[in-house]
């Protein structure tokens, strides 16, 4: 084991995942303590732009593993690639984004490398013996816990998006490539197709701003109001389970316990009561706005700003105000 910190620099289509850039901040803080280097591993096919973005974020070393068979994510092939990088670097700590890919991949890599694993981490540090310790929300955000790792084995953590800033002062990384050797049985998973959700709006899991609506929207057509506001804010549209179950929005937009967990910089909830299962998915947002006619709605307890008026008046006014603001600047 070396004192290095390895980052899985997740990319799709040569675009680095923003959460991968954010990993450089905690990785650097750990490396400053261990005296090791920050190494990024980029896996895919045609990944030069993604690797360049990692360089800008300020890692010491970049390992690229590029192969046509890695063009899209496969749990087995990406496992083989990341394990090869980890075996080369022998890091003390491996960090991945707590994204779909990071959360899917990390348990396999941890199992293969006999490592310890902590998921959805919001704080991380080394204890007196140099073992990793992390903090993470549990019970869908109703509590938070410290997780300690054994010092004598690799520690792996997936880190929640938007927890750390992405540095931009790098540019001097040494880059090397590592050949990809597929493992036996890696080809048992074949990706047949990837269908992108309606191009004009973002997905809640990767948006910095989310405008979410609940049962109060009453039907699918009314969600157009939220899409207009989302367009002005360059935001994604989310929904409560009640709104998804009623068919106003697809389940892919559901936020909450059985939907997606989101941590955007701004979450605007319109006509959502804030049931505990909804809060489970969004209470980690940086700034929360609550638009609800009911002053007792539980969402008000986690909101930074509440407007107690009819959303059908507030949302159009807000859309106009944001548009006016953009016209000024």
């Amino acid at each position, binding site marked *: 084991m070396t004192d290095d910190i390895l980052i899985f620099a997740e990319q*799709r289509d040569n675009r680095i995942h923003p959460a991968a850039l954010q990993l450089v901040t905690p990785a650097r803080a750990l490396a400053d303590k261990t005296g090791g280097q920050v190494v990024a591993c980029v896996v895919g096919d045609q990944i030069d732009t993604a690797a360049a973005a990692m360089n800008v974020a300020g890692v010491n070393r970049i390992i690229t593993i590029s192969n046509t068979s890695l063009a*899209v994510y496969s*749990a087995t092939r990406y*496992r083989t690639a990341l394990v090869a990088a980890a075996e080369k670097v022998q890091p003390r700590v491996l960090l991945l984004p707590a994204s*779909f*890919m990071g*959360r899917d991949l*990390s*348990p396999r890599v*941890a*199992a293969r490398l006999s*490592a*310890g*694993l*902590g*998921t959805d981490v919001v704080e991380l540090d080394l204890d007196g013996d140099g073992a990793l310790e992390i903090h993470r929300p*549990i*019970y869908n*955000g*109703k*509590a*938070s*816990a*410290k*997780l300690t790792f*054994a010092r004598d084995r690799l520690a792996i953590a997936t880190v929640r998006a938007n927890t750390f800033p992405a540095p931009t002062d790098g540019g001097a990384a040494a880059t090397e490539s590592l050949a990809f050797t597929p493992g036996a049985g890696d080809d048992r*998973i*074949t*990706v*047949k*197709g*990837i*269908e992108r*959700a309606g191009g004009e709006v973002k*997905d809640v899991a*990767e948006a910095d*701003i989310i405008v979410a609506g609940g049962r109060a929207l009453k039907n699918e057509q009314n969600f157009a109001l939220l899409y207009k506001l989302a367009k002005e*804010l360059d935001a994604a549209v989310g929904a409560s389970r009640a709104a998804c179950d009623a068919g106003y929005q697809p*389940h892919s937009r559901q936020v909450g316990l*059985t*939907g997606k967990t989101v941590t955007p*910089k*701004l979450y605007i909830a319109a006509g959502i009561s804030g049931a*505990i*299962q909804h809060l*489970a998915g969004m209470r980690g947002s*940086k*700034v*929360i*706005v*609550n638009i609800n006619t009911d002053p007792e709605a539980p969402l008000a*307890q986690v909101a*930074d*700003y*509440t407007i107690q008026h009819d959303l059908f008046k*507030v949302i159009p*006014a*807000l859309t106009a*105000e*944001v548009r006016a603001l953009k016209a000024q600047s």
Partner: protein
Amino acid sequence: MRILVLIKQVPDSTTRIKIAAGGTDIDRTGVKLVVNPFDEFAIEQAVRLREARSDIEQITALTVGPAKAAEALRTALAVGCDDGIHIQDDAFAGFDELQTARLIATAVKDGGYDLILVGKQEIDLDSGHVGPAVAEFLDLPHVGTAVKFELAADGKSFTANRRVEGAEETVQVTLPAVVTCEKGLCEMRYPSLPNLMKAKKKPIKQVTAADVPDAASLFASVGGTKMADLQPPPSRPPGKVIPGEPEEAVKELVRLLREEAKAI
């Protein structure tokens, strides 16, 4: 074809969490326990396969947990699983998710299962480690967070859809394999009263540390994280109710979002 469904009993999602003295666990007195919601999708998916086909020989539900976790197995049996495996031993009590996965993999590796259905994640620890880790320990492919599942007519492979950021992937996988089940796959039916009665007669096999060869050494070699210092969630600063008619309130909101919160 043989199907294994992994289930866990967890506190109901509406539980108010109180932290127990010592800070390493929650206070479990009076807490209502249910089958993990994502595991319900796994149970239902297995039972639907049997209803649609003639080649499903056996559906087994497995849990690792204390005596009370047998209730979760009974629910699975009432919905249509055939038998249960209950792995239970004080020696396993402090296991983390990877060690649990290792234990499950060791216990089922000679069971001849073609398909292992798992919940996407528990709603208590929210980890999502067990499914992919079981797949790795058994050297099987897996599909995570499946929202659609179709078994090929010949029973040798399946296609599944999984949601990722901004897209839905369709993947084809050869069996045997592991699938983790996401909301949208299917909703579990309520077990009927007669089926609840029948479930009481279905067999549940008890497995203890004595039945797992080399238990201690297997677990010394993976995971080993320890949870401590449970705390209530970090409190948010008290919010502001913005007064005034909608137009004024919106103007003030935008000003606050820009100047105070720096969010837009």
